[in-house]
């Protein structure tokens, strides 16, 4: 045990002479988050809400949260939201955007939701170039239901439904939805970001800002994959889980822009 060092006592006057340089965004509610300690969802929620706050578009934003750990997102995101059936967020968002074309619409989906049961809805929404932001949180596992294998689970990754390690010959390889949708002409801006450290989180925020700015121009779907962690599902500590995604996921799911308007990208 390191020797007990009493914490720096708060010196009231010192604080008065300081500015607040970072604080919780008002667009996150006071509801304590149910996410496990160190889960990337909280970070992704925060970046999204910070951007919506900075763009001043709270009054024009409608979000869609599907089934998964983030099913309760509407307890935390202070914008009008709809909860979609598992896999159907992109269809629900299509319905919203088509009748409210002047609003900013986003979906916030996990890998099971977007890359398994919702594959068709995702691909067709992007293929139609629905003018929405798809925020795709990929932690290669089904968190909410207790750590089962996902379509993006890695070769030999141990999960509660691949207890001997995922055998990709038997269950398929990690599904690269982002590269898949990047090929669709309807995809306007496609990038893969992460929440493994502060630099990645800053880049994620920039990508979300870019995507929501693009949404004003009505040029097609903006698709942001966020490589995230799942401490409970991986049976690891939060820090170990962040190292795990760096050492294992990034090689399979390389970070960076995949399709940027004007710069071509995966396919011109």
């Amino acid at each position: 045990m390191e020797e007990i060092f009493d914490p720096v006592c708060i010196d009231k006057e010192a604080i008065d002479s300081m500015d607040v340089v970072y604080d919780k965004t008002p667009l996150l509610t006071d509801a304590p988050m149910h996410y496990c300690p160190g889960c990337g969802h909280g970070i992704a929620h925060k970046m999204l809400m910070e951007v919506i706050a900075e763009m001043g578009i709270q009054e024009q934003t409608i979000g869609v949260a599907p089934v998964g750990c983030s099913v309760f997102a509407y307890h935390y995101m202070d914008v009008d939201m709809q909860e979609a059936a598992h896999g159907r967020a992109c269809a629900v968002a299509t319905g919203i955007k088509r009748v409210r074309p002047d609003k900013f619409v986003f979906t916030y989906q996990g890998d099971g939701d977007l890359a398994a049961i919702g594959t068709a809805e995702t691909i067709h929404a992007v293929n139609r170039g629905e003018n929405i932001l798809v925020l795709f949180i990929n932690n290669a596992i089904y968190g909410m239901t207790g750590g089962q294998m996902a379509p993006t689970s890695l070769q030999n990754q141990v999960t509660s439904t691949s207890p001997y390690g995922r055998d990709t010959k038997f269950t398929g390889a990690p599904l690269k939805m982002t590269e898949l949708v990047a090929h669709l002409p309807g995809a306007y801006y496609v990038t893969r970001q992460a929440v493994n450290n502060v630099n990645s989180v800053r880049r994620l925020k920039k990508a979300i800002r870019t995507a929501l700015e693009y949404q004003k121009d009505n040029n097609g779907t903006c698709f942001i994959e966020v490589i995230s962690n799942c401490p409970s599902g991986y049976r690891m500590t939060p820090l170990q889980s962040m190292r795990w995604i760096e050492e294992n996921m990034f090689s399979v799911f390389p970070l960076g822009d995949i399709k940027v308007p004007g710069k071509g990208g995966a396919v011109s």
Partner: protein
Amino acid sequence: MENNENVRLMKGNEAMAEAAIRAGMDAYFGYPITPQSEVLEYLTAEIPKRHGIVLQAESEVAAINMIYGAAGAGARVMTSSSSPGFSLMQEGISYIASAQLPCLLVNVNRGGPGLGTIQPSQGDYFQATKGGGHGDYHMYVLAPASVQEMADHVFEGFRIAEKYRLPAMILSDGALGQMMEKVILPEEGSLPKETPEWGTTGKPKTRERNIITSLFIQPEKMEEINLGLQRKYQALRSEIKFEEYCLDDAEYILTAYGLAARISKKAVDILREQGIKAGLFRPITVYPFPSEQLEHHAVHARFILDVEMNAGQMVEDVRLAVNGETPVYFKGRMGGMIPTPAEIVEAVMTKINVLEESLV
């Protein structure tokens, strides 16, 4: 002949589509499936010249979820499909019922089960009235028996759905959808419409955020939601509709809805010509079912013959309503076969003979 602009000779499917535009429908999301693809075809041709959105989805699963989103955003929305398509929509309908979203769903019933046939059928009665998705929920279900009613029920369906905040269904069939008849179309724009304040339209500073959800993780809350739904279904009984044909002095009552009711009406005429006092009780809303009204007639009847194009589904509701007051028999055709008036007359006569012999 009135050459009024509203009078047309139209297919049932197209009359519904035209009525939907006239009802101020904001959006239609659908998918091709025989025997109702004309609805989508008509709308894709007409809507660009008129108003609203029409979008062909990649599946009925996607279509019903687009309905969920658009309805949740406060729009007047509709979809149409046929039996197999509706099986795919059941999950979405359960979510829509639980999230209390108004929308109009049109099932142009075809022969089943499975891929079945494209001929007319009433095999989806249970799915429509008992709820084909998970959980305790119902839809307000109208059963048209003519092209005129298919058009009228579009207005009525939207009105009830929005008044009570639930999915309303038009339970039609392949024949009604495909046949042409004279129809007096409702007046364009005569159905008032306003954006509901519970819709997700973007949260202004002046209100809390709106949340459209069917997730209530605390059982106490989920039960509260369910109790609310049951109160709603009870209140819906004031919207029951039915038709009584030659029932005043009827000794033998036919019960039937939709196409089967039209055929049964002809059978009643034939029987009446032969001096047989027959009559027809036709539910127009098959949910909520007109139980009390039917029971009121049943006490005077020597027996009831239920006529359907399935293996016997509404007959169960008839028996529940009649509650043993009088025998309830069944005459049905399946697989897309349509009963003829003669068949029905024969079935009634057989039962009368059996009854007469038993009295001798």
